[in-house]
């Protein structure tokens, strides 16, 4: 990896980074997201005023209004298998899909515990003292 220091004031780039690599796609996804959150709700866009102000949008789609739920889940399972069974490219062990690595990591962390940075644990200890709470128990 071409490594470099993280600037103190880092401005993020849209996904794609540069136009040649497709940054207009990330830029467009941000704009449409901002429409559904800040603009459709009469909320904010651009600079948060007051700072920390935010807008959200959520939606739920009931599967059984489109098709039988059990059949849908079977199809999703088949689709997953179809993707995971893709022959992997040179230098890679396998093909995954969104959510699979996190599902596997959950198993590991349920068994071994969650690894926190020691500095974070120190923050918990200070906060517990300040707020008169029980200290965070280490595994």
């Amino acid at each position: 990896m071409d490594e470099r220091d993280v600037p103190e004031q880092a401005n993020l780039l849209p996904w794609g980074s540069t136009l040649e690599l497709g940054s207009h796609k990330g830029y467009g996804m941000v704009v449409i997201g901002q429409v559904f959150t800040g603009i459709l709700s009469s909320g904010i866009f651009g600079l948060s005023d007051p700072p920390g102000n935010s807008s959200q949008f959520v939606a739920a789609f009931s599967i059984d209004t489109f098709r039988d739920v059990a059949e849908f889940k079977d199809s999703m399972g088949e689709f997953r298998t179809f993707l995971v069974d893709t022959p992997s490219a040179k230098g890679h062990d396998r093909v995954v899909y969104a959510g699979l690595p996190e599902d596997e990591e959950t198993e590991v962390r349920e068994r071994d515990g969650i690894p926190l940075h020691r500095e974070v644990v120190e923050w918990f200890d200070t906060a517990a003292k300040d707020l008169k709470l029980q200290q965070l128990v280490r595994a």
Partner: protein
Amino acid sequence: MLEHFHVPEEDKVFVRREDLLKTTTDVFLAMGMPLEDAELAANGLITADIRGCETHGVSNMLRNYVEQFREGKINPTPNWKIIRETSAVATIEADRSHGLVMCQRVMDIAIEKASKVGIGAVTIQNSTHAGMMAYHSMRAMEHDMIGYAITGGGAIMVPTYGAEPRLGSVPHTWVVPAGKMPPFVLDISSSSVAANKIGLLQTHRCKTAAGIAR
């Protein structure tokens, strides 16, 4: 998550999920949140940590939330309300609720609407940071529904060809139940990396890759 975002081996301290959940809930209670809200918020952070998404877990977020409660930016006891509504949609005024709690409550409204008319869509104004957005989309999965959640606001990303930040990183999340297989859980920022990853790299004094930020 890519290896360079993980906690360095020599700095790791392991904690159990239930212990982290208890202490984090206690911190939210100390900030003045009611128990049910404190539990929802803590569970959102620990859901991120247990899934290996520490950018949106306690490491990166809890101290920021504490600071925002202390500065009065997050309202621990909001009086949020529905300001416009039909059978399928609603608009919410959140009264500066904690976004982690507000989005859970609002996803419940969307689920209830979807159970009656097939789809529920809710937009929220005057909220605050909502944590890992997949946490909210995942709530719909428990009801055999596809969940979608996004958050906006802030100016930390430059538009293409732009020289100064005018946009938030706007994560889009979709969660699709898949029966016996792990669900499809897509949670992607619209920036090259999530804003919180930059914060995590700064906290851990790590380096970044070209093309992520400038």
